[in-house]
């Protein structure tokens, strides 16, 4: 054992690994239903923008097995599940705003019968012309909010005075979450009007509140439980439609109701990642140092605000990535379109902002005929000067240069650049490309009040520990990590700590498991609970055994040690119980130091930053646009990590998810606003052959969080996704080689084979 790091820093398998591999891990749809359970299905709009003239439900009602139907008129309270702003009606009364918008739901005796029944509806619409693209929305000025303008320094003047200036635009695409477990809820009515809700959600507390509001009840009548979810990635942060509709049917029928969306319905109904468009003008010197930047940043928000304000804000806060930009002007447009509401997705706007600046840097390098590696380094934040962000936060934990240099060396970057050039000069039809990109990602919810968490810890009389906290287990291993920390703190074997379902009646008013903060916040809250119990215990031991000992006792190997006196944990717990000492405590945590003025766009929105970098080498086929990722080297900062195996899993998984976003994953809407990529046959997430042929991933060994985060660790939730930016820019580098690096390729993300080929063609025409 590792001394004070007892059980921490060990690569313990995921707490549910045994159950995952044997099929015994229970997900919401696996919960055995009591007799009389009904199964629901949602009927949704086939038009993207229309006035509903009439919904004829006669045939639906008559359909085999149908027990109940709900429409907007069945909602006793708030008919909206918008988390911050209104705009997401559960069932709209008059106007539909996207193809896939729920209009009614049925409960039937089986899933199949419910799904068959909803297809029998007859709806008459008065069709309006839908706005499907950002372009149309910008042209018609269909925005969700007024344009937001941020100006720091004097970019106009700086650009004017710069020796070089570039203009351009760039788009990054949407992305479907494609969590393997689709949206599902199971609601059981209890006495009075109480409801027990099982839901595949990242946000049980808000599920609880929204159901309560919908039913005109108090939150204390709704209990939400989540043992685990089969992936979330942001897609289950605010999608409250499924659980609300399920609860409405349970409320109406007084029967247990289960609602599981079919994969197609899931993709059609629920929101995805924001597509972002940027239009920029940048001034820089001959060395590539950016003097000033003017950028318009527009995002496709879909039919409602949902979390778009916060997502766009994070994009604005990450437009710098790792670069010092003191003269900057940003205009931010939140485009309203007749598509499903765009929502949270790992990176939460940060990645889109970072891609915009990385593309600018890449273009500067190509314009100056320099290696983008040099331009990136030139513009990095520095330690003692050039360390204030465009939102006025001083960066105190900057290690990007160390990581970047170490990775460049480790991956033989410079040597390989030369080798690749040689390869390209000898090969006409296959071209290689390489890129190194940095990641700096801010950690904390930028909505400050969300940075709080609660936990509940019990010790039972046999010395076993029960742990509950507000975090959701969605694969990231938060339960494992927090149990490790709690076990370590009590000096007990990891297995003594029982992990339990997240439950709104145990820990109230929790924030979503999001913003990479789940373990940071909930782990700290759990430790707070542990320390309260310890205080009780120690006071008791000291008084009972008359110990005078001013230092902190040590908890290790099942003993509590006060200098030369030690007490067996299980025995002392029993004694404490007999002496009427409380062995249970709640815990609470709120992140210190952060504050942010949204209006002036200044302050310290982040507690700390995560850093990382990746080098990617690709080969593209000039004739077809097909490509392959030959090698990836990653160095990523996880601070003093809690569980290296789980962090590695996050880093690699995040990278591949980002690779999908930037290469093969393409969400497509036709001109009528119908999504045409709504199943795995039309929407492609990375499969096993897509991953890098050589994949060298390393956790930064010198990592240590400067701030007081548990174990001095850093989260690995979202940041690794952005490591995949290197794949995109390696592809761009390979395309550039077609013109012998004289012309900067024009290509938007995702770099699908089609976009690559068209970019090659476009470039060849300019030669």
């Amino acid at each position, binding site marked *: 054992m590792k001394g004070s790091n007892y059980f921490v820093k060990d690569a313990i*398998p*995921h707490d*549910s*690994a045994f*159950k*995952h*591999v*044997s*099929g*015994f*891990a229970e*997900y919401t*749809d696996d919960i*055995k239903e009591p007799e009389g359970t009904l199964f629901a299905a949602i009927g949704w709009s086939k038009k993207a923008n229309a006035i509903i003239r009439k919904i004829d439900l006669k045939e639906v009602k008559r359909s085999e097995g149908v027990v109940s139907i709900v429409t907007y008129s069945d909602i006793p309270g708030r008919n909206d599940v918008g988390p911050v702003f209104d705009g997401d009606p559960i069932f709209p009364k008059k106007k539909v705003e996207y193809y896939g918008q729920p209009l009614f739901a049925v409960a039937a005796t089986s899933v199949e019968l419910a799904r068959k029944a909803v297809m029998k509806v007859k709806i008459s619409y008065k069709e309006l012309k839908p706005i499907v693209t950002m372009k149309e929305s910008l042209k018609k000025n269909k925005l969700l909010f007024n344009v937001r303008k941020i100006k720091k320094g004097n970019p106009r003047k700086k650009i004017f005075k710069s020796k070089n200036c570039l203009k351009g635009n760039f788009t990054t695409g949407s992305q479907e979450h*494609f*969590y*393997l*477990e*689709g949206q599902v809820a199971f609601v059981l009515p209890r006495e009075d009007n109480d409801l027990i809700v099982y839901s595949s959600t990242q946000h049980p507390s808000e599920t609880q509140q929204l159901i309560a509001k919908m039913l005109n009840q108090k939150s204390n009548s709704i209990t939400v439980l989540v043992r*685990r*979810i*089969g*992936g979330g*990635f942001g897609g289950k942060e605010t999608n409250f439609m499924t659980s609300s509709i399920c609860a409405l049917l349970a409320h109406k029928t007084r029967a247990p109701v289960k609602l599981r969306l079919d*994969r197609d319905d899931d993709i059609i109904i629920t929101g995805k990642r924001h597509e972002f468009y940027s239009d920029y003008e940048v001034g820089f010197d001959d060395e590539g140092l950016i003097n000033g930047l003017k950028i318009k940043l527009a995002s496709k928000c879909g039919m409602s605000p949902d979390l778009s304000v916060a997502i766009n804000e994070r994009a604005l806060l990450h437009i710098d990535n790792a670069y010092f930009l003191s003269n900057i002007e940003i205009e931010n447009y939140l485009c309203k379109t007749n598509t499903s509401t765009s929502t949270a997705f790992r990176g939460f706007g940060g990645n889109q902002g970072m891609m915009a600046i990385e593309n600018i840097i890449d273009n500067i390098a190509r314009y100056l005929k320099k290696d983008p590696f040099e331009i990136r380094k030139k513009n990095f934040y520095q330690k003692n000067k050039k360390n204030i962000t465009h939102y006025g936060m001083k960066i105190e934990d900057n290690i990007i240069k160390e990581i970047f240099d170490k990775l460049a060396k480790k991956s033989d970057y410079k040597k390989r650049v030369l080798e690749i050039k040689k390869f390209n000069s000898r090969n006409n*039809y*296959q071209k290689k490309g390489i890129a190194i990109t940095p990641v700096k990602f801010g950690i904390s919810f930028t909505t400050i009040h969300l940075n709080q968490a609660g936990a509940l810890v019990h010790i039972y009389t046999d010395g076993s520990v029960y742990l509950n906290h507000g975090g959701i287990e*969605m*694969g990231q291993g938060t339960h494992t990590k927090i149990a490790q920390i709690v076990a370590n703190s009590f000096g007990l074997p990891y297995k003594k700590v029982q992990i339990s379902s997240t439950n709104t009646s145990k820990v109230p008013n929790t924030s979503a498991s999001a913003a990479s903060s789940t373990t940071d916040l909930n782990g700290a809250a759990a430790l707070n609970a542990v320390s309260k119990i310890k205080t009780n215990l120690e006071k008791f031991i000291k008084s009972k055994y008359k110990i005078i000992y001013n230092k902190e006792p040590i908890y290790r190997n099942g003993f509590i040690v006060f200098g030369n006196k030690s007490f067996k944990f299980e025995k002392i717990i029993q004694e404490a119980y007999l002496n009427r000492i409380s062995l249970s405590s709640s815990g609470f945590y709120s992140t210190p130091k952060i504050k942010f003025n949204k209006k002036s766009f200044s302050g310290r929105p982040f507690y700390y930053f995560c850093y990382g970098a990746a080098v990617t080498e690709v*080969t*593209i*086929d000039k*004739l*077809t*646009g*097909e490509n*392959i990722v030959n090698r990836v080297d990653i160095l990523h900062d996880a601070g003093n990590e809690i569980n290296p*195996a789980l962090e590695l*899993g996050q880093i*690699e998984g995040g990278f591949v*998810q980002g690779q999908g976003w930037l290469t*093969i994953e393409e969400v497509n809407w036709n001109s009528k606003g119908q999504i*045409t*990529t709504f*199943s*795995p*046959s*039309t929407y*492609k997430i*990375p*499969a*096993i*052959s*897509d*991953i890098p042929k050589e994949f060298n991933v390393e956790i930064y060994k010198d990592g240590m969080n400067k701030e007081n985060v548990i174990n001095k660790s850093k989260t690995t939730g979202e940041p690794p996704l952005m490591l995949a930016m290197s794949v995109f820019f390696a592809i761009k580098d390979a395309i550039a080689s077609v013109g012998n690096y004289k012309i900067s390729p024009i290509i938007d993300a995702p770099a*699908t*084979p*089609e976009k690559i*080929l*068209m970019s090659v063609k476009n470039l060849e025409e300019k030669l």
Partner: protein
Amino acid sequence: MTSNIIEFIFNNKIFKITDPDPNETILNFVRLKLKKTGTKEGCAEGGCGACTIVLGELVKNNIKYKAINACIAFLPILNGKQLILVEDLISSDGKLHPVQNAMVKFHGSQCGFCTPGFVMSMFAMYKNNKSLNDEIINDSLSGNLCRCTGYRPIIDAAKSLNKTIDNDEFVKFKKKTIKLFKKIKIKNLEIKKENKKYFAPNTILELKKILKKNPDANLLSGGTDLSLEVTKSRKELKKIISLNSIKELDFINNKKNEIEIGAGTSLIEFEKLIKKHYPDFTSILKRYGSVQIRNVGTIAGNIATASPIGDTLPLLLSLDAKIILDGAKKRELISLNKFFISYRKTRLKKGQFIYSVKIPIYKKNIFKAYKISKRFDDDISSVCGSFNIEIDKNRIKKIKIAYGGMSEIPKRAKNTEKTLINSIFSEKIFVKAIKNLESDYRPIDDMRASKSYRMEIAKNLLLKCFLEVKNKKTLRVN
């Protein structure tokens, strides 16, 4: 003799169901009736692998293990098989199977929802291969999607199983299981459930009889396409005739100048055989679909479905394959080039079925095929191009070119071929020929590719073919 009972081995016992619902998927049966919830539904169309189960099959006194997608397989398919679920891999004393152990050890699960499917694909791989390599591992797991891990730990788990000695409980119980297999007598199956009928005849003679009485029935081969009518369109398939139990349709005849493949031969069996004649055919087949799909999918099914993409179709067209149609009347041999009429419409008449496919073996020819898709594994082509060339003394004596994804049916590029035939094999003539593709095809825009991209790669593939032949090496990134 007919029966309305399906029998299969489950948990070391014979399990019987009288008149099972022929539209019920094995996945729903397992989850809702058996209440075994380890097997997950991810997509209900065979595209994610979360529902992967393994079917044991008695082949020459040995048990073969086939991973399949339970979400698109109908219940009667279990007849005569051994059903193996993820829960069944745990040994009787509660220990994990080596495959499960490896997944734990290498941190192969995160959210865990795809995990049972991976475990089952890996289990089938473990049982069917003595030693493993990257190709086998990638191929075995390409039909399983994971959104959390990035696959590396799963691949490492699979690699760790290489050359380990297999003495799991399936080995221990093998003799007993084979005994059970032999107890099950496969009879002609005739199921009636409410208004639905399902036939699984054992002979062609029986099949013809049934077809005569039920010319409107749906023919079920692998069912990987047909089942979506139920799982996605939520239709009822009132009459199904399964071709799976007809041994006479499951054959491969190797002749000197021709291979004849019975309609019931699975793609996975076929790809092994065609490799020595046309290696590119095998490469395309591996990307046609996952192992789960190729284990049940057949080449005849692919032909009858007549998809405009249909991956194997352009290949067969350029090879000038022929098919034998059978039915109430006489057998007829027709060229595949005459089989497709318009979008998903073929010359197959009601009451007819495909008996076999005949593929000529051209010893002197060069055969090349390319598939372009957004994703390498298990994706539908944007364009699939296939080229069959006979060159004699640097002159193109014969050339047959066919594309999928370029038209409403897969078809030959006759105008382009005309330009090339009898010309000197040169870049000049190919550059000239590719322009003719514009007169051969009018591709469409869809979510997979734009028409301009389709045309562009169609041209470039022909050029690529030329370059590969000229330089005598392959020019491919994958």
